[in-house]
């Protein structure tokens, strides 16, 4: 019973980090139609800046989280304004451009911070474990689950209950009509892109509590993010959440019970879902 509960919580916490990574990408890809492969690199960049603030400068952890998000958001915004904006609907070029940025950002991080991986770090107040009805579980992981849940609710509200969300969804379906209605789609796009990039960097520092930060993360988290949006479906927060939790839980139980087949499980789930439902579990058709 203890094993089951622990594994479930392991899966949820792992899944929540995956959700934080994938949420931003899912919005950008599904709603704005932009493939941004540098999303994982933004995660990593946020993580490194967060590390610098929290560990190097010894400042407050939550400030580090915010700075990480801010830096990633600004860099993401720069990439969008200076480059991606001119590549509207050109998928090939977007892929090549953003992959180029993965190389660039990864190498700069390697240059500045070196190849040594940064060991996981967190708010000192969160050291130790909570006692959940007899089960002792690390505080940092519970916080990750909590933050992920709050963010999921917020993003869902943004997507479905606000004007901004409606504009974006409409803009994806019919750009001309939306601009014809006098709505400044470009400005809204900018805002959403910044938000998505901010979440990536924010996730980088939150995730650092469990994973630390290292130069390989740019590609690794991209891989995770792609797997999740495949499974959960593109373009919706609920899709990213569903995909992330499924993968997280399958991975946690899979690794514990059949460790030799760890990565294989993830890919298998991915393929099965793609065959059964090509647009993912909860995706919108594009």
């Amino acid at each position, binding site marked *: 019973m203890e094993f089951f509960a622990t594994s479930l919580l392991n899966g949820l916490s792992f899944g929540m980090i995956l959700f934080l990574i994938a949420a931003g990408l899912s919005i950008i890809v599904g709603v704005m139609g932009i493939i941004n492969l540098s999303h994982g690199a933004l995660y990593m960049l946020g993580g490194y800046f967060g590390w610098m603030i929290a560990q190097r400068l010894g400042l407050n952890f939550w400030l580090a989280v915010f700075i990480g998000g801010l830096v990633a958001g600004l860099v993401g915004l720069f990439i969008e304004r200076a480059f991606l904006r001119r590549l509207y609907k050109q998928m090939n070029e977007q892929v090549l451009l953003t*992959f180029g940025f993965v190389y660039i950002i990864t190498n700069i991080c390697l240059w500045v911070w070196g190849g040594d991986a940064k060991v996981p770090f967190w708010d000192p107040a969160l050291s130790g474990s909570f006692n959940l009805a007899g089960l002792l579980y690390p505080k940092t992981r519970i916080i990750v689950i909590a933050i992920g849940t709050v963010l999921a609710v917020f993003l869902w509200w943004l997507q479905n209950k606000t004007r901004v969300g409606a504009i974006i969804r409409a803009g994806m379906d019919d750009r001309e009509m939306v601009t014809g209605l006098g709505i400044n789609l470009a400005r809204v796009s900018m805002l959403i892109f910044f938000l998505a990039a901010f979440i990536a960097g924010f996730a980088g520092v939150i995730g650092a509590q469990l994973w630390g930060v290292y130069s390989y993360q740019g590609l690794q988290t991209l891989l995770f993010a792609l797997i999740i949006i495949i499974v959960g479906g593109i373009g919706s927060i609920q899709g990213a959440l569903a995909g992330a939790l499924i993968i997280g839980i399958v991975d946690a139980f899979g690794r514990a019970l059949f460790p030799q087949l760890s990565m294989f499980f993830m890919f298998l789930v991915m393929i099965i879902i793609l065959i059964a439902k090509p647009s993912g579990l909860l995706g919108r058709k594009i």
Partner: protein
Amino acid sequence: MEKDKWEGIRRLWQGRLGQFAPFIIVGLILLTIPHFAHADIQLMMAKSLAFATFAMGYNLVFGYTGLLSLGHGVYFGAGGYAVALLQYHLHIYSFWMAMPLAVAVSMLLAAILGPIVLRSTGMYFLLLTFAFGELFYSIAWQTKFMGVLSVAGQIAVRGIPGIVYPDVIPGIELTSTTFYYFIFTGFVICYILLYRITNSPFGHALVGIRESEPRMQALGYHTWRYKYIALIVSAGFSGVGGAMFAWNNAMIDPSHFAVGTSFLPMVMSIIGGSTTLFGPAIGAVIVTFVEYLASITIRARWPLILGGIFVVSVMFARAGIGVYLARLWEKVRVRYGNTKS
């Protein structure tokens, strides 16, 4: 009198000779440099030709048919592993057995995966092909058959090292230089074959599908069949590239199935120009050599250069460097041929 002499030459220049001149020049360069170059440059030139074959085959699906695949590593890797496993487990080194097998296996895989991946388009096609690439990667990683076992029975090396040059003519062993010419010949043959394919009605139909699939369907084409065949053919060429790569690299490993390899022919096609046949080949040479030269000169910073080139080429040479060079050549020809273009 003088005018007549120049007239004749000028007409030649404007005509077929002028058109083929770039090929002749490039061909001469490709043929002579290896003679003077050291084995590592030969290695890189052979590598770029292997990737050129891979990229040209890939471009049949990507540039011509308009399908963004991120999973051609499956076919490339299949060709490489076919060659490797034949040598490692069955000790068969003959080119005449290895190459057909490489092509057969990769085309068979495309025939099997085709119905699955072609169910989706656009973004989902991208993701699905990517997914299969990673799946094959993880299978190759864990399968004992596809690796070298240690004395303790565990997998010591993922993938097969120690691949040697194939036996082409019994009794004659290939050297670094002769192997290069062998690859070059293979590349030329593939180029000619692809030229035939892309300039045939089939090839034109693919372009039509890229432009507007509904229109083609309205005209009575079974577009799904065309896409399927294109996938299988492109897989075959990818398998050839994979076999060439395996011999040249002396090793094949699971990463050659995955996105890190699948991504390369796409990059090469875009940089070189995905609307032409030779574009991906030019892209292959550019990417291979930039990566190598940058890595030697700037060592740890070369990914920065490569990434920078991707960004620059997307923003400033949108149609592809190959196309840009082709247009340049046309201008030269027109100017010196004095034709009214």
